[in-house]
């Protein structure tokens, strides 16, 4: 099985959702289910990156993942859970505050100690 070192193609710091597509384009002619994605030397991955990685690669092709650092495994696990669960959209309604003047707005902002 061919081993793909993600840090060599992208970076050791995986931040952006759209960089998954850079990886996809780089692997275009390969059979993804026959690949091993190696996370060696990857220091960080954002939730957005992992979410996109899951949808583009894992969900469809189930490739092997190796050397996934614990801190990234936590995010991978969370992402895979949220694909299966129904999302809990928060439904509570907050009252909208509006003000009749700039002075009223400024006094409110000064009063809330934020």
């Amino acid at each position: 099985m061919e081993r793909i070192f993600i840090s060599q193609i992208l970076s050791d710091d995986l931040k952006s959702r759209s960089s998954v597509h850079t990886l996809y384009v780089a692997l275009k002619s390969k059979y993804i289910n026959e690949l091993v994605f190696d996370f060696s030397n990857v220091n960080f991955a954002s939730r957005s990156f992992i979410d996109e990685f899951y949808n583009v690669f894992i969900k469809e092709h189930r490739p092997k993942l190796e050397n996934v650092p614990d801190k990234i495994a936590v995010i991978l696990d969370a992402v895979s859970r949220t694909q299966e669960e129904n999302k809990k959209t928060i439904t509570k309604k907050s009252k909208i505050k509006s003000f009749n003047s700039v002075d009223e707005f400024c006094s409110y902002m000064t009063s809330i100690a934020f």
Partner: protein
Amino acid sequence: MIIKEEINISDDYLSSGLVPVVRIMNKIYNCEDEKVIIDCSKINFVSPVFVISFMLFVFSCKKKVSLRNITTYLETIHFFNAIEADKIDPDKFISTLRTYLNKTYIPVISFPALANRVADKDAILSAIENLLYKRLVIKTNVLIGLKYILGEMVDNITEHSESVRGYIFAQFYPSKGYIDICIADQGITLKGSFDKVGMKYSGDVEAMSAANSQVSSKNFPGSDNRGYGIYTSKNMLIDGLSGQFMMMSGTALYLKDNHIEDDLIELPKGFRLNGTLIAIRLPYQNKDFLYSNYVE
């Protein structure tokens, strides 16, 4: 018209910089002149919320606003003159950042925000994070939390705003153990992003409420897994680090911390930001913080 205000933003609160900006913008909106000069000679100490919201309100204003008497301090932080990080050599950018290692701020930096420039954007953000890491001397868990929160905020600009550029400015308060960071874009706003996919909200505040309730403009049937970024970042910041979160987009303002629960505010009549701004106050000395407790 010339506006000359004495500005000394207190570091007591994250949003302290907003009131002076609103007062200055109110003078600009209400004067009869089409050209306004801001005399900066009395602007002494500013905050990320002041600097970035002022910049965005001025960019959104139909009048011609210019600055004069910019002080050395304002020049050093690159007030209204952001460092365009991708337009200088990467090594030069990193060496420029190194000159801020003994300062209590990083200057206003502008970065490319469109999806075709993510590699540049990510490299710039990584350089900024490395500076913060070295400057603040923070624990790995807090660093990962900071990277997680910043990463989501910046990637949302790319994913939703259609803005060509993004802006970041940060100020540290070492004796108090927290950092204020402000990130913004000049994009289509939250409501504009929802409108584009047919998710109609009656106003900016309603769109702000939705964005802060895990609704994403990129949730489609069968792929309802978006919208976790802001939500988990807020949990990490507020529940995990006792920080504060502020967001402004169009005519809407949103505030949240451990004392203020989802405060949705309509900006005063006539005020509008053509873009989206997020500001956070992040206490970075929590030894017990575990980012993994807040990832979902």
